[in-house]
């Protein structure tokens, strides 16, 4: 009896300790976002004053004006969106098409070719930065957005995700039946497969859009003029000047991060499941 009581007590304590730990950790995780939004509404002198501001001020508008004055803010916003949109749309099409090819057909060298797709995942991306720049320089695509979205149209991650999903979700008999009905192979993909893999397309679209929205290293190298830069790159250039306007930078950062926070709030579960599905199955 006493043994049981002690067990219950210790499990309660463990639970309580767990809650406290989780809340503390959660606060530490959220705090920088909170300060970003707070600082976005404060002047520079206030941000680094004592005590630092813990609540919202009234200078968001003036910070925003500084931002408009120093950088082509909305142009950069549009560039960011355009790049993310183009990468996402093309990725959804080409990756699902390739995933369908790998999932539903038996053809020569299939396993080896799929192995090549997976092997490219192991190449550290940053090491391609200089060769990639040299190629773009050679073909004269510097300062053009296509230099950034054309190479990203059919990434290995997307192909892998789509293949896994199609193998599990679409019965081969369905494809055979459509073929007997006179569908061409592309029609099978377009009319039968695409509608059935909508959930996976949603997940891949989210992941791709977020990744493209946050792109920095290659954009920074390819886009050399202020008008062609995306928001992360152009915000970074504000840092270089003397008398850095941190309030304005935080306002820009908040406007960069906010749409993703919103998307994440709406689709967190789907996104997290999508991101880990490949890892768990292997």
């Amino acid at each position, binding site marked *: 009896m006493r043994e049981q009581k002690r067990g219950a007590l210790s499990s309660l304590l463990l639970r309580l300790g767990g809650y406290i730990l989780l809340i503390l950790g*959660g606060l530490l995780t959220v705090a920088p976002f909170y300060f970003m939004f707070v600082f976005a509404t404060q002047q520079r002198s206030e941000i680094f004053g004592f005590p630092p501001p813990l609540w919202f001020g009234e200078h968001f508008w003036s910070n925003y004006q500084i931002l408009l004055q120093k950088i082509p803010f909305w142009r950069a916003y549009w560039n960011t969106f355009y790049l993310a949109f183009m990468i996402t749309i093309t990725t959804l099409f080409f990756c699902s098409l390739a995933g369908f090819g790998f999932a539903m057909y038996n053809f020569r060298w299939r396993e080896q070719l799929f192995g090549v797709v997976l092997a490219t995942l192991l190449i*550290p991306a940053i090491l*391609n930065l200089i060769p990639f720049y040299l190629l773009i320089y050679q073909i004269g695509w510097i300062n053009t957005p296509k230099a950034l979205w054309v190479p990203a149209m059919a990434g290995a991650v997307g192909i892998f995700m789509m293949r896994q999903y199609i193998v599990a979700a679409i019965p081969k008999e369905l494809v055979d039946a459509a073929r007997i009905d006179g569908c061409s192979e592309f029609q099978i993909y377009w009319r039968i497969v695409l509608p059935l893999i909508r959930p996976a397309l949603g997940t891949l679209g989210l992941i791709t859009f977020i990744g493209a929205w946050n792109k920095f290293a290659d954009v920074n190298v390819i886009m050399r003029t202020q008008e062609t830069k995306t928001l992360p790159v152009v915000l970074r250039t504000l840092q270089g000047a003397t008398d850095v306007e941190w309030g304005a930078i935080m306002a820009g950062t908040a406007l960069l991060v906010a749409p993703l926070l919103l998307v994440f709030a709406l689709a967190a579960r789907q996104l997290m499941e999508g991101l880990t599905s490949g890892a768990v199955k292997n």
Partner: protein
Amino acid sequence: MQESLSNPRPSSSPSGLAMRWSNFQRRYAPYIFISPFFILFLIFGLYPSLFSLYISFQSWTPSDGWGHWKFVGLGNYAFTLTDPMFWRSMWNTVWLGVFSGIPQHLIAIPLAFVIHMVLSRFKTFVTAVYFLPYITSSVAIALIFNTLFATHNGVINLIIAHLHTWPVLGWLLPDQNINWFISANIKYALALVVVWQFTGWNTLLYLSAIQAIPKDLYEAAAVDGASRIQQFRYITLPLLRPMMFFAVSLTIIGNMQLFEQPFVLLNGGASTATPGGQTAAMYMYRTAFEWLDMGTAASIAWILFAFIGILTYLNNLIFGRTARGGD
């Protein structure tokens, strides 16, 4: 299906040309469907890589004009491998790899276990909160932390100053404001940023692996009188090994190419703290785009590539075998 079999549509009845097209598209469809990836990879992945291997044996700066490079043999490699700045950046990278990598996993594994054990209704919500930094732009994160790390009245220094007044914990902490942006300190700031950014991602990975562990294992252990902590030690941890291998591999590959966080926190190399926080990837970038020495930059990329390859291989050798040995 039955209906369509017994009643074929007239359009599929063969005329010679249509039949040939039908056979052609059926036969080559999979190759056409997967071809975009391979075409793009050949043009934007393989070709530039091979070209950069070629250029790593040449001396070239973009203002020389395309094609006007000069063969220097192993000169670029010799220069890089005897360059103290390169070795400093390699040391920074390895240091950061270890001190921003290990804490991520030491926090994430117990955290995932606690989330799994303690929460039910709010599990997704809490995991999502921890996951937030992972979906946030590294540039945004570095800019935010740039303000938080300010020496005077920076939020992080004020927290440390406050903790200094606590018993026990206070003894471990300095009583003066820390200047994070000097060479000796910047690494700690960078490690903190990276840990903050990626712990949630690892937590999610471990949580998904923990959720895949069958419940009856814990129930059986509980019947045998195992405490929660014993269950963690003798059931959860051993069964997490394959995921640890996977997550650690990702951390190694990611940490060895750390670029955006140091690039922004060091103001693109203009900061006085640059020698202490410059990573190999950042050094490679500056060699190419600041000093415009493409040949040397290409040689750095290939040396780094070999280094990451060796590390991944060692990780496989040490961790991979035991991770798979369990099955």
